[in-house]
């Protein structure tokens, strides 16, 4: 069960502003989904290693050599706001 204050806490972590109606709905819908998911707590998983990746990739390392990449102009082309050759953002307000 995910109550209103928990929904608001998670929404803050996720940087999502939710309306009151959305908070209400999230609480209801996520609680139902979590109830279903809870079934995995019945399994005995003692000593079972976790899987984070399914295919054995022998060392993802490669030579560290310069290669062509995006120009500054291309990288900034889609930005909503640009200033002094960089991404412009509001003050972090610290």
């Amino acid at each position, binding site marked *: 069960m995910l109550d209103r204050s928990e929904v608001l806490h998670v929404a803050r972590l996720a940087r999502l502003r939710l309306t009151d109606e959305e908070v209400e709905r999230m609480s209801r819908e996520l609680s139902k989904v979590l109830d279903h998911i809870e079934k995995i707590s019945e399994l005995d998983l003692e000593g079972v290693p976790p899987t984070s990746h*399914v295919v054995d990739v022998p060392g993802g390392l490669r030579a560290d050599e310069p290669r062509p990449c995006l120009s500054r102009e291309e*990288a900034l082309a889609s930005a909503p706001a640009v200033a002094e050759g960089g991404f412009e953002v509001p003050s*972090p307000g610290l």
Partner: protein
Amino acid sequence: MTLLALTAAQAAEQVRAGELAPAELWEAYRERAAADELNAFLWVADEAPASPADDAPLAGVPFAAKDLFCVRGVPSQAASRILEDYRPPYTATVVEQIVAAGAPVLGKTNQDEFAMGSSNENSGFGPVLNPWDRSRVPGGSSGGSAAAVAAGLAPWAIGTDTGGSIRQPAALCGVVGLKPTYGACSRYGMIAFASSLDQAGPLTRDVTDAALLFSAMVGKDHCDSTSVAFPEAVRRPRAEDLRGIRLGVPEELTSEAEGLEPGVRENFEATLRLAEELGAEVEPTRLPHAAHGLSAYYLIAPAEASSNLARYDGVRYGLRVEADGDLVDMYSRTRAAGFGPEVKRRIMLGTYALSAGYYDAYYGRAQRVRTKIAEDFAGAFERFDFVVTPTSPTVAFPLGARTDDPLAMYLADYCTVPMPLAGIPAISIPNGLSEGLPTSFQIAGPAFSENRILDAAYALEQAIGFDGSVPR
């Protein structure tokens, strides 16, 4: 209309034989795609492509790409309003490879936003309609690709599969869909949903087309460190029977499956009988943890998504909602305005599952279940060549039927989530109709067994003789 009746492989053969001009093929499909009434396309090319090289394996037969594949200078939005009209500065590796093999990009297809959904109703640009019955969903998330191929708006298409997003829409639209082994195709330039599960693959009219398109998609890519070299050449399938093939039927995903419709079950059993007539041995087996696949999936995928989607913050690309407040206020308002309800739900679920105090109980546990599911399959493959199930427990459902109940929607993936959790390949082929709508048969095999899967699927396809010609 005869041109449209050709499969992609047949069209390629005619082009190579000089019997069909690639420009004629392009124009015929471009016209159809531009006149799309199913909302399958979000963008259609208008510039005619250069002629293919004489020896190009895909011989100028155009393909449709799911919107989440980045294509340089072309809208690539993952059907999200937060990326509306985003035109990336680079192209996804699999798209580059297919284009290099001689197939031009016909258009970008609609999908569930960020590939989160099983009905296409989560698109930020409206749902796709199922060409078999326009009051029904095409499945998801690659619903636009599946509907486009089924309706003859594109010769073939590519999509992505995270928990069933190629196979389930292929099933609901009566086309073939292949989810390859994790790592077989580069993920570079695929807008990420759940990185440990996402995999690109073909949606096609038949199994031969699937093999041909897949052969252009595989390969190790230095831009994706999780990609691996495919261990053998992808062959054109030719098997005429299934002699010596052992098929395991997992009870958890068949007789005991929740919500399996009688018509789907009947067609599944009929296909098993056909397989036996073709020489296969068919026996029940167990995948004891498969029933927990959905739970593990709906923790792991949202957890990875919540992390992957953190990048949509109104800074580098996409939507920004200006705010009077500080940076975090801008982030929160932008994300609130740009993401649809299902994406918000999954970000919330994933953030919760990863948050302090819950990580071990949810994400950590789900990763252990994932290990058990992979072990279950490994055990089954000691006795069987393939594990077979229906692809979708139901035929295409009516638009709106499940939108108010996220859990009911998630159950659409019941038979397809265990495979990506184990990283193994699986194909979906149409195996008949129920209530006038397609049903489908799924064949899953060990990692990198695609050639054998395609062979078995081909033999069954010939025996089934499914007529995929919806009114085109």
